[in-house]
């Protein structure tokens, strides 16, 4: 599934990020293929907020639609 389908509070693992420039920028913020994160907030039709420890990152909904993830317990 893709990142836009995750629910608030759920844990997830990033499976694939398609764009190489996005991949390079995201990895610096701790988002990369294989990273395990939590969706801490989800704005209605808006960005998905991912959290890793104290770190939070906002990802636009369109970008979230392109990022493949799997939900983990």
């Amino acid at each position, binding site marked *: 599934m893709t990142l836009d389908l995750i629910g608030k509070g759920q844990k997830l693992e990033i499976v694939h990020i398609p764009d190489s420039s*996005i991949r390079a920028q*995201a990895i*610096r*913020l701790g988002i990369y293929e294989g990273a395990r994160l939590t969706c801490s*907030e989800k704005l209605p039709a*808006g*960005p998905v907020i991912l959290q890793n420890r104290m770190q939070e*990152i906002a990802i636009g*909904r369109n970008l979230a639609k392109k990022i493949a993830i799997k939900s983990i317990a």
Partner: protein
Amino acid sequence: MSCHNPIENMSIPKDTKKIVLAGNPNVGKSVFFNALTGIYVDVSNFPGTTVDISMGKYKDSVVMDTPGVYGVSSFNDEERVARDVILFADVILNVVDAVHLERDLFLTQQIIDMGIPMVIALNMMDEVKRNGLKIDIKKLSEKLGVEVIPTTAVKKEGFEEIKAALDRAKSGNSIPKVKDLMTQVIDYVDVEAEALLVVEEDENVLKRHDLENNYGKREQIYKLRRDRVDKVVEEVISETNEGASFKTKLGRWMLSPITGIPILFIALFITYQLIGVFVAQTVVGITEEVIMGQYYYDFVMGILTNFVSETSFVGKLLIGEFGILTMAPVYLFGLLLPLVAGFYFILSIMEDSGYLPRIAALVDRLLTFFGLNGRAIIPIILGFGCVTMATITTRLLGSKRERFIATMLLGLAIPCSAQLGVIAGLIAPLGAKMFLLYAITIFIVFVLTGTILNKIMPGESTDLLIDLPPIRVPILKNVLKKTYLKSKAFIFEAGPLFVLGAIIITIMDHTGVLTMISDALAPVTVGFLKLPKETAQTFIMGIIRRDFGAAGLSTLVQQGLLNPLQTVVSLVAITLFVPCIAAIMVIFKERSWQESALIWIGSFIISFLTAGILAQIVL
């Protein structure tokens, strides 16, 4: 060193040791900079950009501050500047936010891989405790191979230890595999650090050395680095409890629409009170009318009228109605500077408190209708202060397409504070109905233009991907410094353009071109817009200074030449109209001339068309 070193132009003696501060955004670098350098600071514009670099002296060394970045590469102007300063540093003082190790250590490890000697200031140690974290500093230092000093910059804790440690700076434990890759290209570059950027496919560094991108291993290296950083963090951090402090909660409230939108409105209301009411009326009343308009004006006139006649061409050019020694400085320093400084003050507070990225996330969805992402809220908010400076900040947007859309919307539908004051004054007496008519018209044009541009513009816009820093109380000293630096940069950017504009207008006025255009416009004014012929003159004035045009209208209203509906029609025209001459010139400087011409002519057409249609409906 070689001709490839861009910081050589920055007048630093050759053998002076360069201590460079590096770190992610909002980690407190500036506080360390101030602590090290005291008052001997020189702020200069980095060659070829608008990014400012602070330099100061510490003992026999030069200390340089860099913009906050998440890594050394070339994703934007700030990164390019930080990259060049870091590449040629002798010692790096890496300021790290202890609460965000997994984010910050990516940059740390990258600099370690460059092989530059380093000391780490592990900052925000007070927040570590508050958030229920525990960090094994000794272990962190061992893992990274460099000294790690715990600090709390706001309380000045750890500064003496940092100063002592700087002399002991050493290069840390680089990732062996990365080192191997670097040795393959080391002969092609000037300094070891550059070798890293060559293998990381940094386009500028490759270009500088005329290298092809054949060594490209960026993703592989980033992954190695990420793995290593995560492993280090895993080993040194332990969480003692789940500390959801008030600030964390506040951060959440700012994001969630139900609470976030009211918070945003409160913030905007405070901004309006401060900028729109206090600065625009009280402060500008003193600076523009009294300080610049009387003292300065009288001073200049007193001197110059001895040498030139006011009515001669040279006289007009220097001290006439649109003179480069009269209108330009009065406008620039009396009106613009206070407004710009006020806006940057608010913006710096929003930035340093961590609120700005949350606003961007909150409005992201809305702005995607116009082909923009949440970050575009910054130039839009700034536009209500001054479209000229807002145009400059469109640089932070990710693609050419977004910069064009944002610039067009700014030039067209955002009235600047100078205009807002006069518009409010004109429309308030006419009652709520007229105000709504005006506001809705402008809003429709804004939405339609944005939506259409998004549909017809080729290419793609970038998506939102931003770090949400923790909510913090900003440090006043840093906010003031930022305000000062940005306001100064603005004056240096817009000032010369404004003088040029003053010259052009004087020539147009002197040669009669101004009246000619005014007369030529009359059929449109009278026939289509159903306004008296005199309004054309105010439109021309509106190009010179946006509020001139609006002010001209108030004269017409006072003379009884405009009825309420005509007033609204002409206000709509004036608002949507091409922005003032300073803004036009900045647009031409920032965009290609084709794009600028399109924006300029486009807003002309849209403004008259909208005002005309409105006139045909209501008049």
